[in-house]
């Protein structure tokens, strides 16, 4: 059975590895474990502190800017147990060490360095060591044979992770609830492990996540190149659409007919394309020291009217890397005072058609 589970995990892991980012990590923690009675008079038990340590692998399932979903497999060492008062009023401590294998789905939420995490899943465990010790210090190491040879249960945890180096430093608060009575029929009733713990660890992440960043950078670089092509196209279209001869006029009309009555999507794309060209022209006019102040002011006003407000966001790029942020009003001042020529790479438009954010790159 165990072999089937292991093979299943390996097969699943190899498939998931192909889909996304992978990570390897280590966690260590402390907890207070106890038992809860399910079908009996509750044992008058108190929690017993225990340590845990685990190695785990993460396999990315979904990765967006604000949300990552991962499948996590782990092999760990867990100290569980409890203490209770016997009939003579003496404290007896039961300790059980488990090898535990959690399988959880992990959500990491947030797009900054600090992200919240939520894990939900199950675990399987097998005891490898057990003891009972009374308040006189007498210890019985023969209790392992009395234990059920396995435990299964559910895991729920929440925490925080901080991006650090190639991975993240994390801390989690985890609750592991067992479903199997470790003592079977050897104690009255039916008891199960419950183990809240706090962990600290580090996960190093590799693979597609970095590749995605690189790909995004390359896409941005391509967008910058496209913007360059657009600039050239502007010059060509100006030459074509302001013909001097009759034959050139006819060619221009033919060009308009070709680009005019397309389907709705093509029309929207053409409109968007035209808006970007128009906006780039206005940026050029604002940055041009040869243009008079009135014209620059008119262009600045026209640009601002296309945004949700003066606090719309302008993200400055260099070779696809985000290097600075300005509000649109600051940005217009920046290019006007410094005569820096920038072009739009892409834009975000709200429901009313106004721009809320643009990305720009320097062209001169």
């Amino acid at each position, binding site marked *: 059975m165990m072999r089937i589970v292991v093979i299943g995990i390996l097969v699943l892991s190899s498939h998931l590895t192909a889909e996304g980012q992978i990570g390897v990590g280590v966690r260590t923690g402390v907890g207070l474990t106890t038992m809860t009675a399910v079908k009996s008079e509750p044992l008058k038990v108190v929690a017993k502190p225990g340590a845990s340590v685990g190695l785990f692998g993460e396999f990315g399932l979904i990765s967006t800017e604000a949300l990552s979903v991962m499948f996590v497999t782990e092999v760990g060492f867990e100290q569980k147990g409890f203490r209770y008062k016997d009939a003579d009023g003496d404290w007896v401590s039961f300790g059980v060490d488990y090898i535990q294998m959690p399988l959880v789905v992990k959500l990491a939420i947030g797009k900054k360095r600090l992200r919240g995490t939520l894990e939900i899943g199950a675990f399987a465990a097998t005891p490898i060591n057990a003891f009972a010790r009374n308040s006189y210090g007498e210890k019985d190491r023969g209790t392992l044979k009395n234990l059920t040879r396995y435990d299964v249960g559910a895991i729920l945890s929440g925490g925080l992770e*901080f991006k650090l180096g190639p991975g993240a430093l994390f801390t989690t608060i985890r609750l592991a609830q067992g479903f199997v009575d470790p003592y079977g029929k050897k104690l009255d009733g039916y008891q199960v492990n419950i183990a809240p713990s706090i962990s600290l660890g580090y996960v190093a992440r590799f693979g597609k996540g970095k590749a995605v960043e690189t790909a995004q950078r390359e896409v941005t670089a391509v967008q910058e190149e496209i913007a360059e092509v657009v600039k050239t196209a502007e010059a060509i279209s100006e030459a074509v659409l302001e013909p001097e001869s009759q034959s050139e006029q006819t060619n221009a009309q033919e060009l308009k007919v070709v680009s005019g009555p397309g389907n709705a999507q093509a029309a929207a794309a053409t409109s968007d394309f035209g808006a970007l060209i128009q906006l780039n022209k206005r940026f050029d006019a604002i940055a041009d020291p040869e243009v008079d102040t009135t014209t620059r002011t008119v262009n600045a006003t026209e640009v601002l009217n296309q945004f949700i407000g003066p*606090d719309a*966001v302008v993200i400055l790029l260099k070779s696809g890397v985000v*290097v600075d*942020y300005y509000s649109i009003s600051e940005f217009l*001042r*920046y290019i006007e*005072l410094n005569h820096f020529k920038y072009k739009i790479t892409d834009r975000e438009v709200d429901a009313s058609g106004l721009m809320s954010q643009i990305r720009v790159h320097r062209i001169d």
Partner: protein
Amino acid sequence: MNKAVSTLMLLMLPALLHAQQLNLEEYEVKAFAEMALEKVNALSNNLTILCDKTETAEKKEATMMLALKLFIDDRQTVETSSLNSDEVKYERIGVYLNRLRTLPYKQVTVKWYDVQYVSKLKKGTDGKYYATITVFQEFTGFGPEGQILYRDHTQKNIDIVVDMQTTRIGDKEFESPTVKLGSIKVIQTK
């Protein structure tokens, strides 16, 4: 148990402090190095406007705001020197920029030239990236008749820092590595 928790927190502390370390790829370092040069050129343009007696107060105010945004914060200092004295004075960037608007000349020109790196962007022990850009400044003060009353040439070094910065625009906050200008030091005046 309390001891265990305290120990755990102590173990976490250096790691948390370390969490602000930047790890820039080569292409990112190059991009920030280019942006640093753009910011130095922007500062040069801003100084020209602030000194220009023909510019309006409104334009100078807007220029001041943009110039201050180029720096890490308003605690950065600028060293100034004069051919008339061996003393090198320094003042906060805001005070310096404001003083340029009120220099006792009929007209002032400040030109920066030969802007170049003297040390390239490199990671420091604190996880930030540092560089130094040197500029040569020609400062000229003109009298009422347009005659030159004072002129000097000063080499200045500008500290460059790339660090995680939180930029607030409206109700949005962006946290990302950003290149900023630091203090400006006088190397020589002649």
